[in-house]
């Protein structure tokens, strides 16, 4: 699975403070720790408190790039912030995210093509998040149609089924798992799928247990990428083990060490 480290996020007060004080060491160290723990990519989110989202995004990307050349997942609701990040990054990025609204798809698809970035599309539109599976599938089809008509490579598109907390929408979680599988049958080549994992346990106790249980289940349904805390060792070890059980990697007695060595950790 493609692991996107979630820790550089302005929702976290320490990160928000580091952005405000332009504390490069803090951000670089947070980037390094996540890459060393096995993150394939890093999510970069300046948070809702940012007054200059584009400026903060540019500063974050430039700061991280001094430390890591991995994929950066530029996470913002503001197109100007995403574009600032794309401009500042010399390496591959993920645009996180567009919705199914045609006006937003037009802006972000063009941006992704211009900067050769991956694109995350949330299955929601200006009316909000559909409450049922069919509503989400319909929006997913709309997104894929748009991508196909506009020549965007479908296997560089990540569909996000939008994971809501277990204490808010418990009855939707199994549907999310089914969507991960169903999205794949909507087009050839199939789109990829992505989740912001920690949402599932927002506001709950035993967050880590809920996160890792859901991740293992989502892995079994074919999830391609997740935004998660790569420093949570039990979480990453559960994921490594799930991929063994799914026959995605070859078993050996020291399989955790094998995974880490294969990733140069």
């Amino acid at each position, binding site marked *: 699975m493609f692991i996107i480290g979630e820790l550089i996020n302005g929702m976290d007060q320490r990160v928000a403070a580091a952005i405000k004080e332009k504390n490069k060491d803090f951000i670089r160290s947070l980037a390094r720790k996540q890459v060393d723990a096995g993150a394939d990519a890093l999510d970069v989110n300046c948070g809702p408190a940012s007054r200059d989202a584009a400026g903060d995004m540019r500063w974050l990307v430039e700061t991280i790039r001094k430390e890591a050349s991995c994929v950066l997942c530029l996470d913002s609701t503001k197109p100007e912030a995403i574009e600032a990040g794309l401009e500042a990054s010399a390496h591959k990025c993920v645009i996180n995210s567009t919705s199914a609204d045609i006006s937003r798809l037009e802006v972000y698809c063009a941006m992704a093509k211009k900067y050769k970035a991956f694109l995350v599309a949330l299955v929601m539109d200006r009316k909000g998040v559909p409450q049922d599976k069919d509503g989400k599938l319909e929006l997913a089809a709309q997104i894929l149609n748009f991508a196909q008509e506009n020549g965007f490579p479908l296997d560089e598109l990540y569909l996000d089924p939008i994971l809501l907390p277990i204490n808010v929408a418990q009855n939707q979680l199994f549907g999310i798992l089914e969507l991960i599988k169903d999205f794949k049958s909507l087009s050839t080549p199939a789109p990829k799928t992505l989740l912001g994992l920690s949402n599932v346990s927002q506001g709950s106790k035993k967050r880590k247990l809920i996160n890792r249980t859901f991740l293992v289940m989502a892995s079994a349904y074919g999830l391609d990428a997740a935004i998660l805390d790569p420093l949570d060792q039990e979480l990453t070890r559960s994921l490594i083990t799930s991929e063994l059980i799914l026959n995605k*990697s*070859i*078993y*050996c*007695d*020291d399989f955790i*060490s*094998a995974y880490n*060595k*294969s990733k140069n950790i």
Partner: protein
Amino acid sequence: MADELKLLEKWSLKVHEVKLGAGPSAGGSREIIFNIGGQSSFPFLFKEGDIPNRPLIAAEVLDCVEDDWPVGLRTDLASVSKDPVEWARKMASDSGADLVCLKLQGLHPDLGNKPVKDAMALVEAVLKNIKTPLIILGCGSADKDNEVLPAISEATKGERLLFGDVVSENYKTLAAACIADGHNIIAESPIDVNIAKQLNILLSDIGMPLDRIVINPTIGALGYGLEYAYSIMERAKSAALAGDKMLAMPFICFVGQESWRAKEAKVSLNDFPQGGNARMRGIMWEVVTAMAMVEAGADILTMRHPEAIKIVKSAITDLMKR
């Protein structure tokens, strides 16, 4: 072309490239050196990835020959089989073999129990008489191999030879010597991809660089488990190409040893009239086994019969034409 391209696989990892032999500038004395591995596709699928190196053939040379050698080998190798130095020289210069694989089976307590100094003298003489890199195999007795092979490793320091085999139960002594003396190592697993991977991790844990390991997946000859070996190699290779660095090593396949053990390669015309000429039958058993291993992804084939070596070398040359 566009439709064809849609069917091509894209792989994310290359097999580690292993260097065999070192010339004078790199601390050795070899005039010919080779690279093996380095490919980013299954064998001969040139449109799917790079295949920078062709499979090599190592002529098997033994320091002592059993009395019951099959007729094909006994007659055609009669002039050299008592003199391993001349045998190695002749195979390296005349048969088309790329390099030599010297098996020191006479060290075995049951096969002569030769002293260490004899083995060391033999290796030194063979190295003087060939220009190519050398593969050196022990006798299979762990105690004797752990005594002799590290001594040979030290005496040939810097030559970047290929030593074998280590197994999960006995790898530390020879691996430590090869690490210290700059040699490559053969990691053997019993037709088992899980054990192959585990042994590579163990070797890596004690400091063996991944680009100095060659996997011996253990093969069976035609009719003796060849398909099973093929499937294990294919599985390891597909995992490697998909990103598993701990399985991304070149393969060495002991074709000669296995195919000349097959009943069909050994029995006489009288005992097996429907099998035809015994000599040619043995040669073809070795050729067919070798070709299956080439298609399975072998990077080195060790072979015995000069005629079989010529046929397989020519077939490899054809397959490498893009």
